């Protein structure tokens, strides 16, 4: 009997991606909570990801797979069910392109805009706005980045839909609004109303409290 375990953390957007993918495929798994934010990693995690010592790690039939995007591709190749990546090679390549764009280009300035202040924040906000405009453009005529249903780009964009939106609320940032980005706004609504997404995202109040605690700790340590 195939055994699937996922090493993750309740508040991590990365391990959340994997949970969404496993649920989309209807795969049962055991979630093993790792206390990563307190640097209290288990010996098993260190054994299965000796190179990076990070979550998420998927364990399938005793073999580990590391790095969330690598794991997403593995899940798509291993289990039947709704496709995470398109079948057509060109469309697959474009999905990989936008995934990389999100991770390498969009998320850093969005995080920077949330956590920094002053000139650094202004610069990050400008950069993030330009990138969001590009993302907005890719949603033309589509409900999700993946088309009619959620795909890899939507899964990776969970950070925007939940973590970033919460950070915006806490900090008063108004980078991503329905007025400024109507297509992204609509995508947010559609994404967050998917049952799998709703049941997998960490609770908003718990995440809000955790962010507030981090902001508090950062301010008092200055």
């Amino acid at each position, binding site marked *: 009997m195939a055994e699937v375990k996922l090493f993750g953390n309740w508040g991590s957007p990365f391990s959340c991606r994997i949970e969404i993918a496993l649920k989309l495929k209807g795969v049962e798994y055991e979630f093993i909570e790792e206390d990563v934010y307190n640097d209290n990693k288990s010996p098993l995690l260190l054994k299965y990801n000796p190179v990076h010592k990070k979550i998420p790690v998927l364990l399938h039939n005793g073999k580990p797979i590391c790095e969330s995007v690598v794991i997403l591709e*593995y899940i798509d190749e291993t289990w039947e069910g709704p496709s995470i990546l398109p079948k057509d090679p060109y469309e697959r390549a474009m999905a*990989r392109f936008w995934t*990389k764009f999100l991770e390498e280009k969009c998320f850093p300035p969005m995080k920077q805009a949330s956590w920094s202040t002053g000139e650094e924040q202004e610069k990050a906000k400008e950069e993030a706005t330009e990138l969001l405009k590009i993302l907005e453009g890719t949603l033309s005529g589509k409900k999700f980045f993946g088309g009619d249903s959620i795909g890899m780009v939507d899964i990776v964009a969970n950070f925007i839909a939940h973590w970033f939106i919460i950070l915006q609320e806490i900090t008063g940032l108004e980078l991503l609004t329905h007025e400024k980005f109507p297509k992204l706004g609509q995508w947010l609504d559609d994404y967050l109303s998917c049952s799998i997404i709703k049941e997998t995202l960490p609770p908003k109040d718990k995440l809000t409290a955790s962010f507030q605690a981090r902001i508090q700790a950062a301010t008092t340590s200055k």
Partner: protein
Amino acid sequence: MENKDSTVKLVGFWVSPFVQRVRWALKLKGIEYEYIEEDIFNRSHLLSELNPVHQKVPVLVHNGKPLPESFIILEYIDETWKHNPSLPQDPHERATARFWAKFAEEKLFGAAWIGLCSEDDEQEGAVKSSIEALEKIEEKLKGKNFFGGDRIGYVDIINGWISYMLPIWEEVASMKIYDPMKFPAVTSWISNFREHPVIKEEYLPSKDEMIVYFQWRRKVLKGTYPPMFSNLVKKI
């Protein structure tokens, strides 16, 4: 096996290691293509049209559709032309290959590039990180001819720059990352890679031209030289 396909174009820059990967991948599949040299310091409308988001090379154009980013192009090539697969068939082995390609790119290529463009403490830190990454790659290569085993594949193509470009960067920036005495498995891999019948026959930029080019880049990126020096941008 020759595949005459006149609808494949590769937009590149003569010295780019990213473009070089795509050349190797196409050659290993026996795919014919039209090469279009792009002056990346004086970009044409072509690159803006084909890669509007990043405006970078390489871009592969197949049946009129453009694809950027070497990692993405390599996977596309493998999925479109299914003979001589460069990625393993087994999903776990594929995941392992993707993991190591990403690791090497971020931890070795990324750090070595910083080493090329910096000096003093910053360079020292970059060299240390590069060596740590190379140590992990050495472990990975022990007892194998290529990263995937006996056959050349995806991870070899991604890491091919180590075999000809890393020594140039080391020379230009007076840094030592790859010591053949300390990395016997990497040394053996470099030889296997360079001597592979397909790799051996493929274009590589000349050592002298690379040295001049990267000396200029090091000066510019360290901030000690004006950015435009057009005679270093060659037309091939």
